[in-house]
């Protein structure tokens, strides 16, 4: 069985996106090694901004942008960056992308910028971004690094959107700030879901479901 699997992978490897590694990388980042649900990284912002679906979506977009941008740049510079200087370089690059996004948000999406407050700036310290730059972009070519950044950003964004959806639905009885016909009229919003404990419950349940669907690690199985 195991031999078969390996054979299939060996034959498919040279073809497709980024020498066949593209899809694998995408699946790894967005699902099998989901930064939030499986690795449980970057949960600070995930807990803080998910009380509204719209906030979650913008935050997810911000992380995709920063992850893709910083992965691309770190990967492009990987051969000229002095080894002991690499982390400082990574942080400088990440900070540049985060401030870029923040500035555009302030100029063209003022209301959202006010809602998210300090959390956009705090993406600089998000372990997912730095983790991907350090663990992936430093060793891989630019195109594949973009795929990895996209995958991990998506993995984060999707989990955020799921949590944001349920927190807004149960906590405010609305979706995207709009009332839902046939639901908002009789549903009494549960304040707990808007507050911090609601975020922990929601995140815990999502992590549980992700792990349950994915099943145990192969080495744990026996």
């Amino acid at each position, binding site marked *: 069985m195991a031999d078969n699997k390996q054979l299939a992978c060996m034959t498919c490897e040279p073809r497709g996106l980024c020498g066949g590694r593209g899809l694998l990388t995408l699946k790894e980042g967005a699902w099998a090694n989901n930064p939030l649900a499986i690795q449980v990284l970057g949960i600070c912002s995930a807990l*803080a*901004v998910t*009380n*509204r679906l719209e*906030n979650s979506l913008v935050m997810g977009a911000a992380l995709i942008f920063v992850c893709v941008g910083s992965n691309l740049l770190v990967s492009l*510079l990987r051969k*000229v*960056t*002095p080894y*002991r*200087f690499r982390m*400082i*370089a990574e942080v*400088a*690059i990440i*900070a*540049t992308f985060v*401030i*870029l996004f923040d*500035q*555009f948000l*302030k*100029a*063209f999406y*003022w209301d959202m910028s*006010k*809602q*998210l*407050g*300090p*959390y956009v700036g705090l993406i600089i310290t998000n372990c997912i971004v730095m983790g991907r730059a350090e663990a992936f972009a430093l060793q891989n070519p630019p195109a594949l690094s973009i795929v990895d950044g996209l995958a991990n950003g998506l993995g984060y964004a999707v989990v955020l959107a799921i949590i944001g959806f349920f927190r807004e639905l149960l906590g405010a009885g609305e979706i995207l700030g709009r009332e839902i016909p046939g639901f908002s009229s009789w549903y009494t919003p549960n*304040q707990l879901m*808007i*507050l*911090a404990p609601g975020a922990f419950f929601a995140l815990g349940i999502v992590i549980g479901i992700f792990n349950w669907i994915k099943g145990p690690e192969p080495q744990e199985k026996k």
Partner: protein
Amino acid sequence: MKNNVYTLFYAGVLGTVCSLLLTAVASFTAPYQEANAEAEKNHNILGVLQVPYPPGASSQELVEIFEDNVRLEQKGELAMYIYVPPKDSGNEETVAVGFEGPGLWGPVKGFLALGRDMRTIRGITFYEQEETPGLGGEIVTEGFRKRFVGKKIHDKDDNVGIVICKPGSAKEQNEIDGITGATMTCDKVQAMLNEAIKSIVEEKR
């Protein structure tokens, strides 16, 4: 040695490129950001003074309505935005005073509108705040701001000041229900409001 020089060179180039990029973006977006901040301020003054304006008015129209209707009066340190509505409109004369102070994470700024008696709160608005989204950030919601309308800036014995108390426990004429989970923000808002109220009362004397 050669290694060190290269590292320093690399750091210099990377730092310069990043800062040039950010400077370019900051100067490109600055006019938009300033216009946003100015429109936000005017919008808030109009809103808190309850000046009628068409919904969906452009920033330009808002500036015109603002200039036509609102008069700025400087009394010592205190800037008062006064709206005298047309006689047949049935609206009351309203005075807005700015307030600001430290919030939980950053500065909080807003306007407090008082009726002609300078004692009754007619409205409140916040145009700058960085409180926790969903908790302290809820001070900007209409639900919270409405709780101020009709309250007095002094208690029954004429002691000046308002109190933002535990949610559901407001009884006196100068007590306002706070927000669950945002006690720190509420305390700080209360402090900055009382400072503004103090200067209003002093200026009136």
